[in-house]
Each structure stands twice: as C-alpha cells, then as structure tokens.
C-alpha cells in the first residue's frame, strides 16, 4: 500500500475529466469511440482499485481468512489503515448498489420501449427513439409522422438508423457506468452523449447528401417540442444548437489517420492503467523492482 496504489485511477480519471471539459478536434465518430473507451477504462480502474484496497483491508482484519486464499493475492505491503479501508468498503458497497440499479433501469427501459415500438406513440410531441436489440427498431410518435414532410422524416430515420447501426447504446452504457462509478466523470458522459448525436447527424447528412436539410429538421423538431404548452423546458443544455451549427458549417474532416491513432493511443494508455489497477499488487511489485 503506497501512494502508487492510486496512480492508475488518478491518471485515468484526470484524462476523463480533461476530455469531458475540452473535447477533441476529431470527427464525432472518433471522439465518441475515444470517450467511450476512456469512460469504460475509468470505470474498471476505479472499481479495481476500490476492490483492491477493500480486499487488503479485509484480509488484514480477518487473519483466519488469509490462510484460505491463495498466497499470490495476499497483500505483501503494509497493512491498510482504517482511514482507507473503511471508505473503500463503504464505496464498494455503494458502487455495487448503484450498478445494480443502473442495470435494472436499462432493462426496464428497453423492455418498455420494445413493447411501445409495436405501435405508434399517441402524442403530438414529435418523438423518435432508437430501440436497440435484435427486435429493436424505431419508436415514433403520431406528432412526428403528421408534423414532418417526407424528406424531413427521411432525415430522422437515417439518424436513428445510425444509432442502431453503430450500437450507440453500448457507448452510452460505458458513459453512464463511468458517471455512476465516479461523479467527476459526469461531464465526460455528457460530452459522449453529444458526440454520439453528432455522429448520427453526420451519418444522416451523408445518407441524404444534404447537411442543411439535416440541420433544419433537427431545429424544426426541437422548436416544435419547445413550443408545446405542456412541455417542460429542460434544465440542462441538450447540445441541439451545437449540432445545428456544426451541420451548417462544412463537413468535418474524416480523420482517417489521426482518428485511429488517437483511439489506439488512448485505448492502450488507459488499458494499461486499467490492467495495472486489476493486478495492483503485481504492478506495484514490478515498480518496486525497477
């Protein structure tokens, strides 16, 4: 147990906070991939570190248990102080509960949306949702179908198709997990959400070969939703303005080289740190030899 124990989690979290704050000058498809990778690795690293500290503390408290676990997982450093051990146990318990609730919420959402997508939602609110899964599809409302022209509907369906095609719900899961495990990573999750919408917008713009039409469709649907008398305005910025501005500006560079390079670099870097957090005792031993 030394300050090095917390180095992986500190580094990955710092990277996550930085990326959440500033973003990257990359095509949204690459930004989203990188952000989701960092989010997933941050979640793993945080959980791994907590489990390591909690385990070492537990073993020190129960000498009888130490005899029954394999030698290689036993802590070889000094004892974990109560000041670290007790919070580690508490946080681990909180985490387990939070993740279980998150999983239950996802399952309920998917079940409900799959059931609802057997028909059309009965509301004037223009709604379109991508429902992932083998029997997923697009869930739309009466207001969307009746209020938009055919060419606008084409944009909406192409946008949702992009979400389904690239499995964006998995990216969202990684982001939500990171935000649940570590509240300082909430901005990372928010940025990831925005990049995924931008990615789907860019895909739709390519499919219909008309950026302006995509921008105007997004703006129309957003303003129609805002004009509804019973609709409550959102408290958080949803990034719609950024999406429309980006579409009205020119197409972004594809980053065919810098995208993969950034993703590989970020993935490898955070992957090594996550692996170190999962095998913390060995990583620390290796460091002490050096």
């Amino acid at each position: 147990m030394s300050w090095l124990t917390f180095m992986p989690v500190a580094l990955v979290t710092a990277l996550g906070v930085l990326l959440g704050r500033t973003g990257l000058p990359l095509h949204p498809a690459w930004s989203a991939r990188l952000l989701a990778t960092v989010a997933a690795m941050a979640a793993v690293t945080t959980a791994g570190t907590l489990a390591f500290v909690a385990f070492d503390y537990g073993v020190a408290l129960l000498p009888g248990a130490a005899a029954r676990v394999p030698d290689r997982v036993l802590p070889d450093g000094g004892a974990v102080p109560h000041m670290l051990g007790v919070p580690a146990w508490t946080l681990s318990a909180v985490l387990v509960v939070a993740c279980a609730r998150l999983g239950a919420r996802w399952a309920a959402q998917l079940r409900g949306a799959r059931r609802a997508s057997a028909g059309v939602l009965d509301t004037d609110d223009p709604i379109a949702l991508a429902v992932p899964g083998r029997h997923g599809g697009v869930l739309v409302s009466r207001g969307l179908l009746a209020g938009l022209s055919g060419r606008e509907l084409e944009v909406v369906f192409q946008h949702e198709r992009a979400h389904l095609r690239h499995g964006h719900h998995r990216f969202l899961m990684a982001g939500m997990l990171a935000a649940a495990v570590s509240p300082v990573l909430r901005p990372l999750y928010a940025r990831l959400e925005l990049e995924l919408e931008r990615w789907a917008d860019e895909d739709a713009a390519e499919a219909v070969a008309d950026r302006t039409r995509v921008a105007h469709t997004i703006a129309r649907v957003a303003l129609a939703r805002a004009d509804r008398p019973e609709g409550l305005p959102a408290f958080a910025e949803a990034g719609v303005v950024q999406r429309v501005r980006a579409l009205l500006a020119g197409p972004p560079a594809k980053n065919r080289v810098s995208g993969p390079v950034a993703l590989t670099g970020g993935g490898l870097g955070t992957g090594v740190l996550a692996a170190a957090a999962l095998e913390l005792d060995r990583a620390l031993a290796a460091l002490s030899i050096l």
Partner: protein
Amino acid sequence: MAVRRRLGQLEAEVLAALAGAGIPVTTAELRSRLSGDPAHTTVNTILFRLLDKGLVDRVREGRGYRYRLVVDESRLVADRMRDQLRYSNDPPGVLSRFVATLSPAETRALREVLGGEPGSTGTDPS
C-alpha cells in the same frame, strides 16, 4: 459489402427509404434504394412488421403491392394504451432520441442561428 444487419437497423433504413421516396413503392423498388442489397424476403419481413405497427400501408397493384409510409393524422392508429408520457420528458438512458427537450436559452439561440441564415430550405432533391 454484404453486412448482415440486425432487423432494427434495416427497419430504420426501410422507413427512411419510404419517407424519401414520397410515392408508394414496390418491394423491388424499395430494395434498390437500400444499401447492402438485402434479400427480397428480408425486406418483406420488415414491411410486414411495419404494417403490423401501423406505420406503413399498401395498395394492390397487379400481383403485388405498393407500400407507403402512413403520415396522415386521420389514418394513424396510435395506441392510447401506451404510456407516452414516459417518453415526453428526457430521462437519461440507453435510448437515443432524435432531439432532447430544449432549455429556454437554447430555444433563443436556435432561433437566432436559423434567423441569421439566408434561404430557409435545403438544396433540391437529387
């Protein structure tokens, strides 16, 4: 590129193609508008599913059918049993929605972006 796509993704693509076509189309015409050359039977499977949902209707023509998107308010059979309120506000989740609800500041900014732009519609259809 023969990618085996999940039905949900193909459903979205079929809906986009029907919306873009503007006129009722046959399965063969629809297939030619889809990427990746999906099988005739696959496209029909999707169309039957959409008929079931009430999103699509068809008119007989010769031995086959022409399909189109149902957008007419009077002909849309929305299911009143479904809990649409759950989808009217924006809970964070794994369901990607087209646009989230705007904050008042965003509404103003969006109107400004659109107001400062010459021409109000997109380019001509190809």
